[in-house]
């Protein structure tokens, strides 16, 4: 397989799957799941080879494909109405809907050039004789400024956080381990959820959780929960 198509060109797992479906010239509603799964995994692995970390969506889809693949091997299930259920059905529906919106996005894109090539003008100046007081709404002022900066691509744009690859450096498990150990230097115990208080992204949450597991495995911390649904308390050993 050639890798001239890079994973970072894809908007997400749906986009990658649609690409594979187009490439193989197959029907969304009749995906040869085994072959598509292995092609999908090949892309994912090529991404790993290039030492890029994937967002959770790509990994989640991989597990979903494998789940569908295994279901296909089992006897056909029937739903409450006694109809046969195709394990691929739900994914196919989602891909189909995504494909429609991708189509719409192309239509919108087609209008963009016209928009970018239209020039408007400011109101003409007339000497002000009202001298009325005005109040300046800071939110409006900020919004106006962000509009201008965004139109010139001068804001920290979407590429800083919507990206499909997150550089490995962003949240490292070692850093989270050190962070948790630092917290437990000052106090013997900490509540489980407090360790997540600064975890604003899914990636941070996952990494924090992995760090906790690692610390438990290495006998550095232990945890206790007095009753079901009680707060979990993390304690240093």
């Amino acid at each position, binding site marked *: 397989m050639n890798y001239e198509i890079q994973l970072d060109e894809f*908007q*997400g*797992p*749906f*986009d990658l799957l649609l690409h594979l479906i187009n490439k193989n*010239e197959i*029907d969304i509603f009749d995906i040869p799941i085994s072959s598509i799964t292995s092609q999908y995994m090949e892309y994912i692995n090529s991404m790993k080879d290039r030492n890029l970390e994937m*967002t959770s*969506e790509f990994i989640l*889809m991989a597990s979903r494909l494998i789940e569908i693949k295994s279901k296909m091997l089992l006897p056909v299930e029937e739903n409450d109405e006694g109809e046969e259920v195709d394990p691929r059905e739900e994914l196919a529906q*989602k891909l*189909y*809907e*995504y*494909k*429609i*919106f*991708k*189509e*719409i*996005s*192309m*239509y*919108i*894109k087609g*209008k*963009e*050039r*016209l*928009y*970018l*090539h*239209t*020039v*408007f*003008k*400011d*109101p*003409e100046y007339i000497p002000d004789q009202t001298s009325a007081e005005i109040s300046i709404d800071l939110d409006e002022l900020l919004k106006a400024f*962000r*509009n201008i*900066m*965004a*139109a*010139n*691509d001068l*804001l920290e*744009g*979407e*590429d*800083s*956080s*919507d990206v*499909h690859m997150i550089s490995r450096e962003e949240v490292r498990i070692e850093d989270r381990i050190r962070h948790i150990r630092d917290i437990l230097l000052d106090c013997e115990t900490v509540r489980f959820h407090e360790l997540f208080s600064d975890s604003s992204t*899914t990636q941070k949450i996952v990494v924090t959780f992995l760090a906790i597991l690692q610390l438990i495995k290495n006998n550095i911390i232990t945890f206790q929960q007095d009753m079901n649904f009680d707060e979990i308390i993390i304690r240093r050993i």
Partner: protein
Amino acid sequence: MEDRKKASIIESILFAMGEPVSINEIAQSLGESLADTKKDIDSLMECYEKEHKGIMIKQINTKYQMCTRPENYEFVSSLLYDRNKGALSQAALETLAIIAYKQPVTRVEIETLRGVKSSSSIQTLIDRNLIKDKGRMDVPGKPILYETTIEFLKYADIRSINELPDYEEFIDGIQENVLEN
């Protein structure tokens, strides 16, 4: 007032104001009824189109605004500044497509349809003034609802959101593609 005079006044108003002017404002200034004013504006627009004038009158909902004819852009931009007015990314375009057709819509709905996180695409679209916050949905968590703006109408070159092609048309497009392949 004779028609030519009315047309002339409408031109003056639209030119001087620069920004979108409502039909009410124009009617009031002319001292005419809304219906008559609408007719006058329509015939002026038609005349501008027929003559391929360098100035166009755009209708946005019930407002009107003058702008340059996009076909002349290369001649204008050589004199204006090199503004790097950026195009939208594919991620932002997909998000905008969903908001345009599903509005009002929450972030979670957008992300379910796209299969990826979309918060920064949403922020980009807000910063570009193409979508806006439409209050919160009355369900647990009170998620923000998003809808398109007036600026989006300009972007899509339509007078109102109803002028967007039917969702079904895109389904047909896909099916044609499937048949062709």
